[in-house]
């Protein structure tokens, strides 16, 4: 940079300020505090999601500024104990916010986790419990799990908040979004939740086809019919999940070592209801081609493996979801068609939007 340029910039700035001041004097506008107002907004929603409105908790209404802060936190590894793990480490935008492995070991300790990282999008409508077993009531409560779990980000919340307080940029952003004198752990979680609620996947080929902006091939159409017949009870069209919990026949029995606090028992560990034994949340089929491996513990590598499981692998016990007692039988050509339909649920607009904005 040439030596003269800072001076020039200064002069320009002075001139500009002068003009701004002069014009401010001549007009009768309310000049102050405009920058403190938050821009609240409701994301645009596609009819193909088949949802009524955009639910959000009254205590945490999203604003552009809150979402921006949440996004910054989501991608910031300094939140973790060793400064190396961010939310995005296990929820990478390029893989529909998953990490592509069965049981991840990229937390602070390197210990293997017990659940596979789920895709985190369209979660505003996941009202009946988050986590694979639905243990978290809402995003605001959930975030403390991965943030503080010793094998994930292992954050000490007091240290985390102190570090954010010492960062001038964060400090200002928090003050702006939450109008509070000091940062508290609740605000950290709320900001991240605001960002996560804006991760909405609704622009796949399927969505365009439904909106009559695109056409399906014959194969995709046949796959769609097969999906309707065999899968849509649990993977309900729209969000492609019934947001409920089912035992889909992965295991016959569920060991319960006390130190794991019922971890292998699925939703039973939360509800203590016998019918919830071995039941897990129905994952969405949206972006399913990007979110391998499959099931709550990532035990099935490919979608072919998943179809094999439903055709031949169902383990029958008392809590098995009744829809699966006969399994799902498809011939090879039907499989090809169904997989073609599933591929139409990949939302590259969504992936690119969030991928680009993070690089």
């Amino acid at each position, binding site marked *: 940079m040439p030596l003269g340029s800072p001076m020039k910039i200064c002069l320009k700035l002075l001139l500009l300020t002068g003009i701004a001041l002069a014009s401010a004097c001549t007009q009768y506008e309310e000049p102050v505090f405009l920058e403190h107002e938050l821009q609240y907004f409701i994301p645009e929603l596609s009819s193909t999601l088949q949802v009524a409105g955009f639910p959000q908790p009254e205590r*945490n209404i999203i604003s552009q500024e809150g979402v921006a802060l949440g996004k910054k936190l989501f991608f910031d590894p300094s939140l973790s104990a060793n400064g190396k793990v961010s939310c995005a480490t296990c929820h990478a935008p390029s893989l529909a916010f998953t990490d592509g492995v069965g049981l991840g070991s990229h937390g602070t300790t390197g210990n293997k986790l017990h659940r596979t990282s789920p895709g985190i999008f369209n979660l505003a409508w996941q009202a009946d419990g988050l986590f694979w077993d639905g243990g978290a009531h809402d995003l605001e409560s959930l975030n403390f799990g991965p943030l503080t779990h010793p094998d994930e980000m292992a954050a000490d919340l007091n240290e985390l908040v102190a570090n954010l307080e010492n960062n001038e940029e964060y400090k200002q952003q928090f003050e702006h979004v939450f109008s509070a004198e000091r940062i508290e752990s*609740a605000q950290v979680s709320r900001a991240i939740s605001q960002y996560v609620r804006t991760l909405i996947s609704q622009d796949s080929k399927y969505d365009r086809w439904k909106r009559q902006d695109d056409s399906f091939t014959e194969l995709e159409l046949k796959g769609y019919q097969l999906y309707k017949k065999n899968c849509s009870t649990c993977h309900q069209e729209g969000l492609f999940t019934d947001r409920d919990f089912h035992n889909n026949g992965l295991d016959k029995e569920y060991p319960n070592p006390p130190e794991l606090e019922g971890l292998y028992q699925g939703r039973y560990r939360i509800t203590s209801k016998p019918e919830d034994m071995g039941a897990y949340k129905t994952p969405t089929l949206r972006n399913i081609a990007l979110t391998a491996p499959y099931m709550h513990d990532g035990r099935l590598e490919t979608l072919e493996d998943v179809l094999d499981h439903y055709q031949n692998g169902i383990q029958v016990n008392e809590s098995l979801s009744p829809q699966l007692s006969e399994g799902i039988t498809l011939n090879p050509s039907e499989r090809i068609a169904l997989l073609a339909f599933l591929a139409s649920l990949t939302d590259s607009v969504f992936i690119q939007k969030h991928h680009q904005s993070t690089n």
Partner: protein
Amino acid sequence: MKNILYIALFSSLLIFSSCKDEEVPATMAMNITIEHVLDGQALELNGKSFTLPSGEDFTPKKFKYYISNVVLTNSKTGETYTEMDSYHLISEDGNKNINLGMIPSSNYDQLTFSIGVDEVANGKIDQTGDLDPNSDMAWNWNTGYKFLVLEGEFTNASSGDRQGLIMHIGTNDNFKTLSQPLSGVKAGMTTSINLTSNLDELFLDPNTLEISELESTTIMFGEVAAQVAENYSNGFFTVK
């Protein structure tokens, strides 16, 4: 002798008149202090060994719990004072005091509070103050708070091994509300209520617990946790 009598008469007149003339202030300072006792001795963490009602030895390492929804009642007049946002994390190595500040004056004769966090506040953990999840009292995989935490070491009666005891009691069913009679609280007077929490009662009344006999010494959910909660709703707190 006469003089003394006169003085006595005079001063009693003074006292009576002062009682009649002075108005009771509208508010009074109210404070609640809590002490923890086990086997008749003041609780200590990380060192001292105590004897449980079962006769088993026990070295406590952590003891904390929530007291919430504090209410004072004057049962004669029906006056009540209800503390707002009433959530207090009490711990042996931390806060053992509930300062209600200045409250409306009354001859309160009953103290009511709950052990744990009520269902509404227990339904989320992005909260502040004593409910901030930074105090290690929030479950991160099953939204809600631990209502009472007791951890320590004991010698297993049959094996002779040193073993850990972990009691994390929570969930809405184990939220218990109790009332204690108060005596001597006078309207307008600065008052300190002294509560004693007797840890023996976690293992007694109505459910007698022998920890060496338990299937698991990690007590978090299920039947044994419910038994402990029944115990802490019975005789765990007394007003001194």
